[in-house]
């Protein structure tokens, strides 16, 4: 047995009205990668915030024992001085500043009166090398991709002499390739004796890197699973712990759906990048979707999936160079505005629900009707009663958990926000729904409900295009799957034929020549 480096004993943390953590016990051994899993709101991040001193000593009950001594962290600097460094889910880098400036922001090297820039940059370069980045630390952060920005965050943590590194959903905004690189980097650090805690929703990643898994549910630690024990830990086993029940089928069956004629078809669709005109983000794509059909589009991030969807949706991204769009057999030319797409009964449900989807400062009612105010108004005068009724109808239909439809959307959980976003587009009464990563960042239970909604839509004869970077989801939910890579569609297969292996090998075979 390796020695216990960290022990959190009987931690209880209450917020006004809520017990976020209830008597939590959590142990980490030196030199292991310990995964912390659980549904959204289970208390994982709260626990880590207690550990790192964001919630200072005295605002919680219980003890933190680190390297044999009881710690009383009053602020983040206290825990950092002990070598406990947390990397938050949302990247905390200033885009306009250089990598080096970012890494030492708040910890500037030099005298109080003058920063020693030479030393800053040479130190920064040293740590960048350790995380495998070849960029100079004088590069501005906005010039590197998200994957590399995540690595900069890690380099920044290293520069603080981290010995216990906490990564809160480090791969949530990374594509599969960058995620793999990051996980491999973690395994490399482990060899050098670093201890790490990783919070993640992606169970395949958990299986890949972790030595132990602790499951958190409703503010309590449920169990700790040993990955090197006798029992093989399956994903279903972990999910069982997370939701507290056996999930026999993660994807609800779609029964008796009659698949009809082709509803929407695009041919030879080529789209130019809005700024870098020499690049085509979508290249000669042809695809179709039938009535009552769910078509999956799988591809790594950056493959051009979102760009394809948004360019169909009234050219809300890029410039269309060539291609035709047929709706119900008739060729249409949409004006360069989302409004025209909505009029032609196309809906695009964005992957970025907070950034591009919802008005967080407004109520569920207001968000539900935003894309179809005509449906609740006469001569542009709103009928608040009709609007309220519509919002209520969709709240019930989608089982959105909220005290009332007057609740601000910003106060809802991710899963419920996603339901409001779906409600908004269902209220616009489209024939074709393009769902871009409809289950990103929401917990297992809410995912299941979203899948049921997708099935209902298909049953009602709508055509659904589901873009996703989760292979099991694409295979489990689609009737037919398109595989996209490097701006092109590189394959198409029926769901029955699809396996994770043959889809991945199709992508690898197509190469990544962009």
């Amino acid at each position, binding site marked *: 047995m390796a020695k216990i480096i960290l022990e959190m004993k009987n931690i209880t943390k209450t917020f006004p009205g809520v017990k976020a953590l209830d008597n939590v016990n959590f142990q980490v051994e030196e030199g292991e990668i310990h995964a912390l899993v659980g549904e959204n709101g289970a208390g994982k991040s709260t626990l880590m915030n207690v550990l790192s001193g964001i919630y200072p000593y005295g605002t919680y009950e219980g003890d933190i024992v680190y390297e044999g001594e009881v710690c009383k962290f009053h602020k983040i600097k206290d825990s950092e001085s002990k070598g406990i460094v947390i990397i938050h889910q949302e990247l905390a880098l200033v885009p306009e500043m250089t990598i080096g400036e970012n890494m030492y922001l708040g910890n500037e090297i030099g005298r109080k009166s003058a920063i020693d820039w030479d030393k800053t940059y040479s130190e920064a370069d040293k740590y960048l090398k350790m995380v495998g980045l070849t960029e100079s630390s004088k590069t501005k952060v906005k010039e590197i991709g998200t994957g590399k920005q995540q690595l900069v965050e890690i380099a920044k943590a290293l520069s603080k002499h981290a010995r216990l590194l906490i990564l809160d959903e480090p791969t949530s905004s990374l594509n599969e390739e960058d995620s793999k690189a990051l996980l491999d980097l973690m395994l490399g650090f482990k060899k050098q004796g670093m201890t790490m805690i990783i919070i993640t929703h992606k169970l395949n990643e958990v299986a890949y890197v972790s030595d132990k898994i602790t499951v958190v549910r409703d503010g309590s630690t449920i169990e700790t699973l040993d990955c090197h024990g006798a029992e093989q830990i399956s994903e279903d086993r972990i999910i069982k712990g997370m939701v507290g029940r056996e999930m026999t089928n993660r994807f609800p069956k779609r029964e008796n759906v009659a698949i009809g004629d082709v509803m929407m078809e695009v041919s030879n669709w080529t789209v130019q990048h809005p700024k870098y005109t020499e690049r085509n983000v979508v290249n000669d794509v042809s695809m179709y979707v039938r009535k009552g059909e769910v078509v999956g589009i799988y591809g790594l991030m950056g493959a051009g999936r979102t760009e394809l969807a948004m360019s169909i949706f009234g050219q809300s991204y890029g410039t269309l160079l060539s291609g035709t769009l047929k709706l119900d057999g008739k060729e249409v030319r949409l004006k360069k505005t989302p409004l025209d797409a*909505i009029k032609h009964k196309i809906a695009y449900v964005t992957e970025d629900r907070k950034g591009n989807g919802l008005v967080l400062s407004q109520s569920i009612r*207001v968000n539900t009707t935003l894309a179809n105010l005509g449906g609740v108004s006469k001569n542009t005068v709103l009928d608040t009663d009709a609007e309220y009724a519509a919002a209520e109808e969709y709240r019930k239909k989608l089982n959105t958990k909220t005290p009332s439809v007057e609740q601000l959307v910003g106060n809802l959980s991710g899963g419920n926000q996603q339901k409001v976003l779906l409600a908004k587009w269902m209220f616009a009464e489209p024939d074709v729904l393009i769902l871009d990563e409809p289950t990103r960042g929401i917990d297992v239970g809410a995912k299941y409900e979203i899948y049921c909604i997708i099935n209902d839509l298909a049953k009602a004869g709508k055509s659904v295009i589901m873009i996703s970077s989760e292979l099991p989801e694409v295979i489990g939910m689609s009737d037919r799957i398109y595989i996209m890579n490097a701006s092109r569609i590189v394959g198409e297969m029926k769901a029955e034929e699809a396996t994770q292996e043959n889809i991945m090998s199709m992508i690898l075979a197509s190469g990544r020549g962009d």
Partner: protein
Amino acid sequence: MQTRSAKAFFKKNTMIIALVVVILFFYWRTGGTILLPQNVNNLFSQNAYVFVLGTGMLLCILTGGNIDLSVGSVVCFTGGIGAVMLDRDMNWLLTVIVMLAVGLAIGMFQGFWIAYVSVPPFIATLAGMYAFRGLSNVVLQGYSIGVDNTTFLNVFGGGADCYIPDFIGKVGNLNMTCMIAGIIIAVLFVVLNIKTWITRKVKGYTNDSMTSELAKVAVMAILILYITWKLAQFKGIPTVVIWILAVLLIYNYISQKTAIGRYLYAVGGNRKATELSGVNTKRVFFIAYSNMGLLAGLAGILTLARMVQGNPTFGLGYEMDAIAACFIGGASAYGGIGAVPGTVIGAVLLGVINQGMSIMGVSTNYQSVVKGLVLLIAVLFDVVSKKKE
């Protein structure tokens, strides 16, 4: 539960409570002078421009905390044009239409750059602030020009006869037209509010509790009656109050009940999401700033009438009063949050503070200091209460 609902009540009505406290304070310090009929009357007449400009400014602020710095200059410029036209004995109605049209045109001009060329509103309207101040001087040739068209003055609340004539006559010292109008408005207000409340109740929508609804309606009704009672003791309803009321009611309706109103809030809350919902967001910006120009034209008319002259120094700092009224009234500096009633409270609060201090004989220098502090405290309140959430 009791304490929680009390807390929620305080939070929801912070500015109203603050207003009441401020009024009580000045009532005490001025020995009651602040609530003399004439002073209540002046509160509206003197601050008409804040109500009108504040309403327009609110729509701009809703789009994302954007402000219009040019309105003070536009008030002066349109006022100048009006003064010159009336001085040449042109028809007063034509003059009014020209002034409104010029205001609207200026708003459209600035709105064009902001909406369709993406010039930051601060800069586009700062440019307008300089330019139209200069043009005011050109139009008036540096002099002040008096207005002697009595119809114009009477209609827009300037000169001696700027009150609605008393059709009924006085009973005691009370102007009965004013009193009856007040009673009708109060009754209408009560009936309409209770009617909506009952419909909502019947249909099972979320609703305020009956006590808080009744309390709210009762307080507002008493307030309306109190103000009209005060005005009736003086000379009746100032004509300018009619204009203020019209603007407030129309814009409250637009912002709450129409699609364009909804879009103003949505654009300020999340522009990208609104655009992807099929809304022409550029048009929303264009409308907000065009409308601001139109209302600046109206404020120009009211100012010209009240001052009975056009003067190249008029309107200085008006934009700041309007902006302050919005923020004191709870508008968010990031957009998407705010409402006309809030702006009214902000405007009244500023007006009361101005007047109270003048009566107390505080120098204008210190009045400015106090106004600044009030703005800071009001926004602080907002920020702190949000943080606690």
